[in-house]
């Protein structure tokens, strides 16, 4: 959504506008005037039409494709908004915190008079004909949750209507601190020290965070109905990246609002290791280009005719930390350029075109960019392509590789493996609006694509899609995830909208597999009501899920044969002060014995060492722990390192070789 769509999600929600009239009462009584136009006549009700709420089963599988597993317990869970059936493996659900009242109608059930009143005011003549769950969801889904960012004990949950800030000092007792009302969608968030960044792309975004949006133009004078009119520019409109000062977490202040031509669907915080005075924001705009009358210099012309087109670029904002109010766009890199010809639409200008053919419409936007400053690279998920950028000079990122894939509909997001040898891209087929994990939906579509990264070259290794089939009333497709810092393995936790949360091991890029999951049944069994997890991220020992419709989920990992308690405990040794997932940080593990134990478990699982050596290692580690790292026990550990190094040189897989090296290192110099 980041993406939350894309579409990012792009959520959608049958429902959003439904809230138009919901704020009746409760101390913020709005003053309404009589509508100038008559309400639609009841005769307009779509009675003759087929039921649009009926779910659509997938078409037959295309030849050569396979679908997902229908024998999985996740396939047939009972429906419900707050009481859906649940299935999990290797994950414990600790908490669901419902969306704050200020971000929804606050109704308690479909029979709530407020809900009924809203639906009535929406012009639905006969309320009894609308399915009850829908009535409920019209109210509840009005304000979609989107992406997450973290700092210390604070969690920032983006929403189309603003940001909610939670205290997660005790994750199982997460508590709301601040609801920040500032609409404009989709509310992608990042946090750096005292600054909170927020993406705004929708035409209702206002500089002053007002909720009223902008009015339609008045009807044309008689006789001029057919004339095309250029809309009036709105000086109060805001589309771009907002910057808030969160020094007082209960009273954030807007310090800057940096306007961009396409708004900001997502953004990425970039911290230049060589620049302590500024941070940078990469802005991915996916929406329409606004009029130059509204923001000078904006134009959406064809790339060959308009060298200043706001298409075919990203924007870079420089934020001076001492004076964030002076933040501004400092460059608009042409990341799709053809370096030989200088064509802005370089990614699709290859091949011959018959002159009778229309010019191809090229990749002109990134949806989301993940930067990995430690290796000087960024992976851009850019609608029609996955691209690799050299970001050593963060103001002037340079494309060094690009890939395409006929199975991919929309390149949505990217994650590097910690060692930088792999990139996981996601395909948000259907924009997050549709059911795309049905039994007959091919498991190469709407999936992760795992690429090898060697030097500056990407090469496809495999696909990973949620293994469990989902119902046809569950919007489901690959979405946002983060690495889980299990040493010795590449593991990602990922949200699949109503497909739930899936934890995937991609240590072997060619053979990814699932190690844990959590899923709920659909919100409704008869129609698709948008919901599900937008993002699922690991942060300092817990997994947080941003549930579009329901609220905020908190999870803990539990041991299974796929992931041991030692591996989970080792993951918990990695602590970060801030987490902005698209600004990927290098994970480093302390030389603690719990990390060593995780490696031992892995070497046993892969049978890289015989059982007697595994037992000996465990015994030595346990004795060392019991003795509180006495000198003699430490010496014993150290004595085992050499043979591990030896085994590393003959290990059959690079993963085992790396584990043996890392284990030997810890045994040589274990932390107290």
């Amino acid at each position, binding site marked *: 959504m980041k993406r939350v769509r*894309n579409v*990012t*999600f*792009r959520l*959608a929600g049958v429902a*959003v*506008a439904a*809230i138009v009239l*919901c*704020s009746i009462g*409760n101390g913020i009584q709005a*003053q*309404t005037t009589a509508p100038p136009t008559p309400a639609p006549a009841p005769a*307009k009700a*779509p009675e003759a*039409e087929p039921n*649009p709420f009926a779910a659509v089963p997938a*078409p037959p599988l295309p030849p050569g494709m396979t679908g997902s597993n229908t024998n999985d317990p996740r396939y047939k869970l009972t429906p419900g908004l707050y009481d859906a059936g649940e299935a999990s493996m290797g994950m414990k659900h600790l908490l669901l915190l419902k969306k704050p*009242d*200020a971000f929804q109608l606050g109704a308690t059930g479909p029979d709530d008079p407020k809900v009924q009143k809203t639906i009535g005011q*929406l*012009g*639905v003549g006969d309320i009894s004909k609308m399915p009850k769950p829908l009535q409920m969801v*019209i109210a509840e889904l009005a304000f979609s949750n989107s992406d997450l960012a973290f*700092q*210390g*004990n604070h969690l920032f949950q983006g929403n189309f209507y603003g940001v909610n800030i939670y205290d997660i000092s005790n994750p199982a007792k997460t508590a709301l*601190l601040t*609801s920040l*009302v500032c609409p404009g969608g989709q509310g992608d968030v990042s946090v750096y020290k*005292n600054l909170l960044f927020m993406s705004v792309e*929708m035409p*209702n975004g206002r*500089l002053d*965070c007002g*909720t*009223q*949006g*902008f009015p339609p*133009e008045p009807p044309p004078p008689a006789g001029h109905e057919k004339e095309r009119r*250029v*809309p*009036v520019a709105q000086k109060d409109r805001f589309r771009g990246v907002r910057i*808030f000062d969160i020094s*007082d977490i*209960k*009273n*954030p202040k*807007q310090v800057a609002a940096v306007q961009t031509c396409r708004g900001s669907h997502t953004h990425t915080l970039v911290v230049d290791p060589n620049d302590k005075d500024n941070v940078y924001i990469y802005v991915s705009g*996916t929406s*329409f280009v606004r009029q130059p009358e509204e923001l000078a210099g904006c134009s959406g012309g064809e790339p060959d005719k308009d060298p200043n087109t706001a298409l075919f670029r990203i924007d870079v904002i420089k934020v001076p930390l001492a004076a964030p*109010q002076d933040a501004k766009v400092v460059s608009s890199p042409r990341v799709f350029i053809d370096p030989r010809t200088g064509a802005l639409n370089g990614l699709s200008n290859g091949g011959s075109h*018959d002159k009778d053919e*229309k010019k191809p*419409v090229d990749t*002109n936007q990134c949806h989301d960019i993940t930067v990995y400053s430690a290796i000087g690279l960024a992976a851009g998920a850019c*609608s029609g392509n996955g691209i690799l950028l050299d970001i050593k000079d963060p103001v002037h990122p340079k494309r060094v590789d690009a890939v395409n894939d006929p199975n991919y509909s*929309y390149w949505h997001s990217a994650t590097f493996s910690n060692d930088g040898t792999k990139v996981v891209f996601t395909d948000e087929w*259907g924009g997050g609006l549709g059911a795309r994990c049905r039994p007959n939906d091919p498991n190469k*579509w709407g999936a992760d694509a795992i690429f090898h990264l060697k030097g500056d070259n990407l090469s496809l290794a495999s696909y990973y899609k949620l293994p469990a089939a989902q119902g046809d009333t569950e919007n489901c497709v690959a979405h946002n995830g983060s690495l889980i810092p299990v040493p010795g393995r590449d593991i990602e936790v990922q949200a699949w909208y109503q497909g739930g949360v899936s934890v995937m091991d991609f240590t072997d890029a060619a053979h990814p597999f699932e190690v844990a999951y959590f899923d709920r049944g659909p919100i409704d069994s008869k129609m698709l009501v948008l919901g599900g997890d937008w993002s699922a991220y690991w942060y300092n020992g817990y997994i947080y899920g941003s549930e579009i419709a329901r609220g905020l989920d908190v999870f803990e990992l539990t041991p299974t044969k796929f992931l041991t308690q030692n591996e989970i405990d080792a993951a918990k040794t990695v602590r970060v002060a801030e987490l902005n997932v698209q600004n990927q940080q290098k994970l480093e593990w302390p030389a603690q014995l719990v990390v060593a134990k995780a490696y031992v478990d892995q070497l046993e699982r892969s049978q890289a060492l015989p059982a007697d050596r595994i037992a000996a290692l465990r015994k030595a580690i346990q004795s060392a722990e019991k003795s509180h790292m006495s000198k003699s026990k430490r010496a014993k550990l150290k004595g085992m390192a050499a043979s591990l190094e030896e085994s590393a040189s003959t290990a059959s897989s690079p993963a085992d070789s790396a584990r043996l090296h890392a284990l030997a290192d810890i045994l040589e110099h274990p932390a107290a």
Partner: protein
Amino acid sequence: MFVYTRKSEFYRFRRKRRSRSQSARRTVALLGALITASASAGFSSCARAQQADRTTAPVVVQPGAPGKPSRTLPPSTRATLPQRSQADVEFMQGMIIHHSQAVEMTALIPSHTENKDLRLLGARISSSQSDEIKFMQRWLAVRGESISMAMPGMPEMDKPGQPMALMPGMLTPTQMDALRKAKGAEFDYLFLTGMIQHHDGALTMVKDLFDTAGAGQDAALFDFATDADNTQRAEIRIMQSMLDKKPLKEKQ
């Protein structure tokens, strides 16, 4: 349609001034947060400061324009949205007609070509567009709008069985006939060029929508229109590369 004019958006509530000692404590808290890093000492000071945060009830805050103060809203605050535009409704109605033709075109694929790539592409377009039609129908129905478009001055267009109005990029009846009659490589060519034309028309419709004042402020519609735009641009690119890869035109 409902028009919802707000004379005064919220009661203005003057924020209570914090005592001096309270702000001092918060400054300390901030420093704690900044120093945090990965040092455990930082974590605990941060945790202590934030424990203090949660002892008070959650607040609802609406920031002002950049540089302006924020307002604290009453806890009973509920959300509101801008009024809906007629252009939104017409966009959805028109796009349903538009998408229906794409589904009709892809339905020809199994009986008209053996091209594996085209079959895969067609399956994906068919699936996406069928889903999107349902989405648009729901969007309209929930808002009490007709799913079909009223054609002022053309009452015959409203009747079932009558020729559909042509939205931008839609294939003419002649083009559709030619497609139905073609087989093999010729079908592939007509399908690809036709679908590119068709998708281009959808892009025009999206542009027209956002060029209308007050339109596109509904989040569901905005996301849908933006996503349809993105997806169709990507599909155009794939279809264009399929056209470029095979010299289909020579076989015409």
